[in-house]
């Protein structure tokens, strides 16, 4: 009986570890991040004074079971190193089979530095300040970049 209890305990601990380490399944896939100019042309480089338009596509994960529409906070953030050059936010919901598009422009000011700008896109269930311990990401982050040239 002692052996059975020990084996059961070890099995329970192993299962807990596997569950804890397993990759979470997110309801959203950040399926596209495109950077364009104001005319809708894909661009990888911009000059000061131009607007870099960032368009994202969120797709409902086909393997995720949507009991009800999932509410999300989308964050599009542009960095130059540790410096936040732009921050775009939107809130929406997504259901099974849906695709959601969002876009916004970041003005590259005359005083902004030249070089590589990194775009990071997140899907969260809210801000950490709002959600507290209930905060969670709803997708793997998405990344893109563009350059600002003289």
């Amino acid at each position, binding site marked *: 009986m002692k052996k059975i209890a020990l084996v059961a305990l070890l099995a329970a601990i192993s299962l807990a570890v596997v569950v804890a380490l397993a990759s979470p399944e997110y309801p959203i896939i950040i399926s596209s991040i495109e950077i364009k100019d104001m005319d809708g042309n894909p661009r990888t480089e911009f000059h000061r004074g131009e607007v870099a338009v960032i368009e994202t596509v969120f797709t409902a994960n086909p393997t995720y079971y949507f009991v009800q529409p999932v509410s999300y906070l989308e964050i599009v953030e542009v960095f130059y190193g540790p*410096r*936040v050059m732009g*921050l775009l936010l939107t809130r929406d919901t997504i259901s099974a089979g849906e695709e959601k598009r969002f876009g916004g422009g970041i003005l590259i000011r005359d005083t902004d530095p030249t070089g590589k700008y990194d775009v*990071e896109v997140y899907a969260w269930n809210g801000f*950490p300040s709002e959600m507290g311990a209930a*905060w969670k990401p709803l997708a793997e982050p998405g990344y893109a970049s563009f350059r600002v040239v003289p």
Partner: protein
Amino acid sequence: MRKVVLISVLALVALAAIAVAQVSLQISPSVAAWGSVVTIEVTAPAGSTCGVEIRNPYDNAVFTKQVDIPAAGYATAEWYVPPGAKEGTYTVYVSCGAAGTDKGTFKVVALKPVGGIVPEEPSLRALLAAGLLPAAAAVALIALRRRP
């Protein structure tokens, strides 16, 4: 046998409780001037995914970051304080979900603190003392003398 099972269950519950309490923030510096970088170190259980958020004194979000905690148990995020940032107390929130949350603050000032003391912003009197007004007077005098 019952004792073994009971002790094992209690041990598992204790481990879970310890994991939940393991999220903490370290923010440096505590007073940051325009143009400096604030480093936020998040300590959390390895494998956690955490959301970091900075809010300014107007309670507007000025920075967000999602970090994955590696085996070392901590990750860092950096925020550059832009010139013109609202002076005052900024709040940093971190949540690693069920692993825990933490909150901290730092101050933003316009001028670089010297020896831990933040100097007053330059006043008109200080500008006068620096000689700007006399310089302007000298330019005006030269312009007058050059008049035909």
